[in-house]
């Protein structure tokens, strides 16, 4: 089962030193933010993003000429997991750093790279991703948002839904149809456009999450004029480009650590209370976390080497997001409490966040069923 092989990675002495540097920075910032669950989606703080930009920790693997620091992806991994473990507010620049930057690097024009990448790396330019539509969730071929080429550039009409953070972003990468659908080649004819969200004709309507918070949106495009040069990559190649992004985003630490602040609080409380029994009951979580983390790190290495991680990345997402949910289920049983978003007891608040955000963990980035289909196809194909 070669597709399932994952190398065991260790960090070097220098990387450990770097980790310490990151950790010290976060500690020094502790007073400026409230640690929270799911902070890569809910923790919006342009100030904090800019501080990270100053440290050189956004777009840090990118070429220096575009504001990057040309560091290794394992170093980036260290930064991300330290921030997530601390529940730091990193939602503002998240998608730009994780997805849009790499997209420009791979497919963008020189002009796009020169214009966008330095701003992203500064922590001042935020992107969101426009994929889903009401009738195109799991099946992106059904996308009906379309852009027509005119003399003034593209004219975009349609809508996107479930776009995280669009109401707080500057731009959106919109996957849309640029030539008519052919029955036998339904994934062709889609392209990715960079849309300035302040353009006339763009309407953003937040959708309330079940907590009442506003994380995602419906975004409407009514004859939005987009400069011709805002297409990313090849016209008609948008589906393939988007799929590559999706695979890339499945095995990161954000699929494992979303509820880590709760786990940290749980273990801390148990240590304080010297609750040996409760600690024993928590340890299954810990062993799961160990194995998921080593899987995730090993895959990060494989990605760097350019290996095919489609199958294993889907596994991490499937198991990791279940683990994130499970943290809440175990925690609530070990320490009985009154979970509440408005509680001033830290454990109760983090627990409430974890329970209420839970359903989202296994939905975003591909549902359980779809991930499992991907895994089985990969495993059976060998």
């Amino acid at each position, binding site marked *: 089962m070669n597709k399932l092989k994952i190398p065991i990675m260790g960090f070097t002495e220098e990387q450990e030193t770097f980790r310490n540097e990151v950790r010290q920075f976060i500690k020094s910032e502790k007073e400026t933010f409230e640690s929270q669950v799911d902070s890569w989606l809910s923790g919006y703080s342009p100030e904090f993003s800019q501080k990270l930009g100053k440290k050189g920790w956004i777009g840090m693997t990118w070429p220096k000429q575009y504001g990057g620091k040309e560091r290794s992806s394992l170093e980036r991994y260290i930064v991300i997991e330290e921030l997530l473990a601390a529940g730091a507010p990193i939602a503002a620049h998240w998608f730009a750093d994780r997805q849009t930057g790499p997209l420009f690097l791979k497919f963008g024009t020189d002009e796009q790279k020169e214009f966008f990448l330095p701003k992203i790396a500064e922590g001042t330019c935020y992107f969101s991703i426009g994929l*889903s539509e009401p009738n195109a*969730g*799991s*099946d992106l071929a059904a996308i009906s948002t379309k852009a027509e080429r005119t003399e003034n550039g593209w004219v975009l009409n349609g809508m996107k*839904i*479930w776009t995280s953070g669009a109401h707080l972003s500057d731009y959106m990468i919109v996957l849309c149809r640029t030539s008519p659908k052919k029955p036998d080649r339904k994934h062709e004819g889609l392209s990715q456009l960079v849309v300035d969200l302040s353009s006339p004709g763009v309407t953003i309507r937040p*959708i*309330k*999450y*079940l*907590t*009442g918070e506003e994380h995602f949106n419906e975004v409407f495009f009514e004859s939005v004029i987009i400069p011709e040069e805002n297409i990313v990559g090849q016209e008609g190649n948008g589906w393939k480009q988007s799929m590559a992004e999706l695979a890339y985003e499945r095995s990161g630490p954000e699929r494992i650590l979303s509820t880590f602040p709760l786990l940290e609080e749980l273990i801390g409380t148990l240590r304080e209370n010297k609750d040996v029994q409760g600690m024993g009951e928590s340890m299954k979580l810990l062993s799961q976390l160990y194995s998921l983390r080593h899987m995730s790190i090993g895959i990060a290495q494989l990605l760097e080497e350019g290996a095919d991680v489609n199958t294993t990345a889907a596994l991490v997402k499937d198991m990791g997001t279940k683990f994130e*949910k499970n943290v809440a*289920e175990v925690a*609530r*049983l070990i320490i*009985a*409490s*009154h*979970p*509440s*978003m*408005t*509680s001033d007891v830290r454990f109760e608040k983090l627990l*409430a966040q974890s*329970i*209420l955000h*839970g*359903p*989202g963990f*296994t*939905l975003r980035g591909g*549902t*359980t*069923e779809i991930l499992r289909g991907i895994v089985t196809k990969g495993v059976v194909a060998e």
Partner: protein
Amino acid sequence: MSDMQEIILDSTNKMFKSLCSKELIDQLEEGIFAEELWSVLVESGITSVGVPESLGGTGGDYNDALHILQLYGRFSVPLPLSETLMVQWLLADHRVPASREIFTLSVNLKNKIEIEETTKGYSIRGKAVHVPWARHAKSLLVLVNFEGASKVALLPLEQAGVEYNSNLAGEPSDTVNFESIDVENIFLEDVEEEKFRMKVTNLGGLIKTAMMSGAMEALLELSVLYSKEREQFGRPLHRLQAIQQHIAVLSGETVASVTIANKAIQAFGKGMVDHEIAAAKLKLSESAGKVTEIAHQLHGAIGVTHEHRLNQVTRRLWAWRDEFGNENYWADQLAEKVMSSNKESLWEMITDRPVTKVPLGEGIK
């Protein structure tokens, strides 16, 4: 189920169905109390079901009341019905007449409320936490210290300070502050503290069990409906094998939960409860996590929006499973019963017909 009960439940069902809309439930979280629906409940007599007619109550028995609370759970009624009923029942044991007011109660161990006798009456000082619906209630039933002894008291809330807080469902769960408040007269009675706590915990556990079983029925209905209406890859969802697995597990957990809840309600109604409440609240609290997860998985993105009715049900299940004892609490209670049973074998315990009289009805002692 008697014909009479069927009629009562049928009309309650219709009433909730027509009056308790999604929007009304949402309004609770916007700070708007459903005055009108509350008046209807009061007028219909539902707020004093189980209080004898001789005390001005509606009559009927606990069995009726608990099945009404099952419907309450099914429709996510945004009102302090269970709290008002509980307090009225506990007061009725003391021959206190039925009332049309809103009551609430708290038996939290962290509460420290002191009552002192003054020249004009009593002075109340202290704090009660996690008090459901306190901001809307007239009075609070609570354990207090009076002259060094534990008592149970019914305290007026008009002058109390109330800090707003809420549970996972957005139901009020407030902190009440009495800052040396003077009152002329209050209900104040002796109580065996531990026994009273157990009584309230049992009653509360059973009530939440009933409410949760109703909520699970709603969850199953919503899910089945969605699987019939929604299509994927050109077929209704319920034709997909993975969805069938979900619906089957959801059905199973729901039926098992409703069955054990009904068993506990029936036993309680007959005044013969042994392990039934513990086993039922344990099972319902445990199942709540499973059914909510499945229902959300099945509903996909639409289900996690505030817009969709689903979250009103799942958030209540998440809140209620931890109220009046989570599954571990009740597992420990049940374990104690098994440990100290005088039966020789587990099988004898399981097949034994409960004969322990429920403490409720003996008055608050």
